[in-house]
């Protein structure tokens, strides 16, 4: 898949619409304003995401994974450096989470937060590009960024990646949302994006 500027812009708009919805839900959940933004959408090799994480000193990450099937089949992964995932849960839950490990129950709350965000983004994709999708329940994974992202070692395959910034009570968390798409899905996504752009006034 090679998306041009126009297509990436359209995707950025679609994703921002989705994270806007998610921000509303998360704000209600947190009881204070949660702001989300997607500064950029890129097509990258998996390796460069792993490198970006490593550069931030975060080779251990925490990820929420959900699969979507239908005309397009994709795995969506919301990833945070491990430390930041703890902070995110702390901000959402309140301050009494000790800062070393996520317990089973805290992992579940991270799954809920990820689920809200991923579903909102994918709903936006499904609605705006008119693609019918079914989703799975979220799964939390902890581990090295390379093993979570590239379980079969395919570092060179390209993925669609969004940086997502969370801002809660003036604290900031940075995560990545990536979509693993197979070839057929990539092609359909390209087609749907072209149709979406063509239909713009």
């Amino acid at each position, binding site marked *: 898949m090679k998306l041009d500027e126009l297509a990436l812009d359209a995707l950025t708009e679609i994703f921002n619409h989705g994270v806007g919805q998610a921000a509303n*839900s998360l704000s*209600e*959940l947190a009881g204070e304003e949660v702001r989300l933004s997607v500064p950029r959408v890129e097509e990258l090799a998996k390796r460069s995401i792993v490198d970006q994480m490593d550069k931030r000193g975060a080779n251990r990450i925490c990820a929420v994974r959900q699969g*979507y099937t*239908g005309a397009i089949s994709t795995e969506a992964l919301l990833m945070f450096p491990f430390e930041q995932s703890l902070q995110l*849960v702390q901000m*959402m*839950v309140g301050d009494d989470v*000790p800062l070393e490990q996520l*317990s*089973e*129950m*805290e992992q*579940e*709350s991270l*799954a*809920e937060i990820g*689920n*809200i965000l991923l*579903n909102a983004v*994918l*709903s936006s994709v*499904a609605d705006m590009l008119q693609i*019918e*999708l*079914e*989703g*799975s*329940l*979220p799964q939390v994974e902890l581990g090295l960024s390379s093993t979570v992202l590239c379980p079969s070692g395919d570092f060179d395959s390209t993925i669609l990646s969004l940086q997502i910034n969370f801002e809660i009570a003036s604290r900031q968390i940075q995560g990545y949302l990536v979509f693993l798409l197979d070839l057929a899905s990539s092609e359909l996504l390209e087609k749907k994006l072209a149709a979406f752009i063509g239909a713009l006034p």
Partner: protein
Amino acid sequence: MNGATSSPDQPAQSMPMWLEWMLSNVQTGLLLLDAQEHIAFANKWVLKRAAMRIEDIQGQALLSVFPVLAGSHFERALRTSIRSGFPSLLSQTLHPSPFPLYADDVQRDCKKALRQSIQILPMGPKDAAQAGQRFTLVQISDVTPNVLREGLLKAHAEKLSDMALIDGLTGVGNRRAFDESLVAEVRAAGRTGKPLGLVMLDIDYFKQFNDHYGHPAGDSCLRTIASLLRRICRRPRDLVARYGGEEMVLVLPETDLNGAVRVAAEILQSVRDLALPHAMSLAGPVVSLSAGVSAFDPVAPLTGAQLLQGADDALYAAKRNGRNRLYVVDSARQEIVPG
């Protein structure tokens, strides 16, 4: 399902006996909603814990059966899932007990709401098309035991981490607690531009006290003085720690040199007032302390090590000049003077 009389597409209508048996015995809550959010089915697990009968709730609107759900996050998540067709979940940590479900045990009198972990699973587009509408399965798990277990583990972990920072004999902070506190408070003082006081205290002729009265009496003397220090330094961020042997140290955030001197003077006087006999002291007939005081001045910041060195030098001066007194680092004149 027992003699349900609702519309013909009620799923219970044509249910084989074994399926009905299985749904009645599965140890998790199952609630099926139709596209209008009416209850199409609830299994025995839910009915028992909600103290409801199927004939009373089948075909009823979910929110009229469970009015507490109106306006809840559950309602929001349900609407979103039904609209998008994507499953969602509600975690116990963020929503402890959305449904009014109670433990079915012998202690019926104390009704404890079950801690719930909830999954909302709407039918996908294909199944919904086949069923004629989008049904949604709400699956409720009782995670009360998990919550209790995590609570115990957390309490245990907190106790261990407290123990690692507390001096076993006196119950005040240990050397590690002091080291951590000094680093953190010096940083905080630098950031906020507020002063920070440091007081080092030493029990006069404590070795002679131990030799004369015995170590158990020495231990008891240390404990008495530690609890007196804690009584005087009672602001939440004040730290009292045992620095070593018979030396104690106080970290006093948002306290300037004069404030720290006042605290030290009050401590020295209070210890004399305890009137613990000390026959071997050359400083007086009772147990007394020597003190060295230094302070972090935001105008001329020091490192933690410099602050500590200053208090230690002042303590040494107090001891050299007769004990049972306090000396102060006057940073403006760069000298150590009686306080």
